[in-house]
């Protein structure tokens, strides 16, 4: 049983970190039984190396065969799809193309008001059209005017309310100041 601070086999197989390796070496200086154990491991390894590597009986070589080789286009295609970055770029390009095609081929929404107007005006004289336009314009102008009046009235109300609030505050402040001075004056007289 080894008393080494770390597994002697790990040390022997160079699987320890450098500081640990040094610790084991320091231990080996003082421990004959661990030195003996290490020697046995070395003897075992040396014996194992008695079996030498053999030369390969037949060299392995690959021949470039045009029949089996992919065409330059296929090589490019394979390399293209083999690259993550290029694949991402291709995906982005395809998405952009799909969006563009979708935007170009989608039918534009029909202008409904115009269509209705066209249908309604079919068969009318230009004077009638003119009078209808005038009526519509007048109606719209009246509506805008009414809206403006309503808005103005609201604004005036708001301003009045704000002024009243301000006035109220000023009065309250004045009252408070008046009370303060009155109390101070009364205190001074006593």
């Amino acid at each position, binding site marked *: 049983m080894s008393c080494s601070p770390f597994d002697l*086999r790990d040390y022997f*197989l160079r*699987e320890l970190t450098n500081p640990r390796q040094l610790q084991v070496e320091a231990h080996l200086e003082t421990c004959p039984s661990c030195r003996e154990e290490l020697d*046995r*491991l070395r*003897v*075992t*390894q*040396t*014996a*194992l*190396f*008695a*079996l*030498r*590597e*053999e*030369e*390969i*009986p*037949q*060299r*392995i*070589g*690959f*021949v*470039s065969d045009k029949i089996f*080789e*992919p065409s330059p286009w296929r*090589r490019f295609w*394979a*390399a293209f799809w*083999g690259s993550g970055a290029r694949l991402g770029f291709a995906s982005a390009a395809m998405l952009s193309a799909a969006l563009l095609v979708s935007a170009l081929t989608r039918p534009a929404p029909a202008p409904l008001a115009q269509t209705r107007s066209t249908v309604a005006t079919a068969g009318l004289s230009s004077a009638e059209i003119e009078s209808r336009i005038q009526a519509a314009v007048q109606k719209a102008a009246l509506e805008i005017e009414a809206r403006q009046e309503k808005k103005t009235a609201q604004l005036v109300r708001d301003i009045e309310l704000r002024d009243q609030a301000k006035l109220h505050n000023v009065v309250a402040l004045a009252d408070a100041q008046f009370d303060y001075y009155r109390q101070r004056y009364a205190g001074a007289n006593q």
Partner: protein
Amino acid sequence: MIFRAVEDADLIPQAARGNVEAYNLLVSRWEKRVYNYLLRITANREDALDLTQDVFLKAYQNLRKLDDASRFAPWLYRIAHNEAYSMFRKRRPETDVDELPPESTGSGITVGGSSVFPIELSLAVAGALERLSAEQREAVVLKIYQGFKFEEMAEILACPVSTVKSRLYTALDLLKAELAPIRARGVS
């Protein structure tokens, strides 16, 4: 002009783009190691050679899937491990994959002609390795002969590092019990 050695990391992207010459250079760097790994776990030269060819073909077909070129070695050995165990499974489908031992060669793996070790020791080592379980033997091959780190071994064998260490240390204890006394006697 700066000269520097061509590295695997230079060859892998080229090979992945279909450069056969770059791939052949890569194969020439690794074929001997992969062959010897397969030879040690199959204990059969023909199988090891066939599997080595399959491994490099499969690696070529899947090289584009390798994200990190620095992980090439464990990735390649993972393919080799899978190919070997796939062969074991085909030959003995009724056996549990985890318990599949390689075929026995009788005399074990032969020693290279240029060995400086006595033949008795080589035979003793071959015998000791044969007596290990398939998993223990593979752990020894990956660590001692192929020099992988524990994390890489875990990746190749698709198991936790703790399992790798357990297999390896049990194997080392068994080998030590058999081989260290023999070697010690030889030395003294």
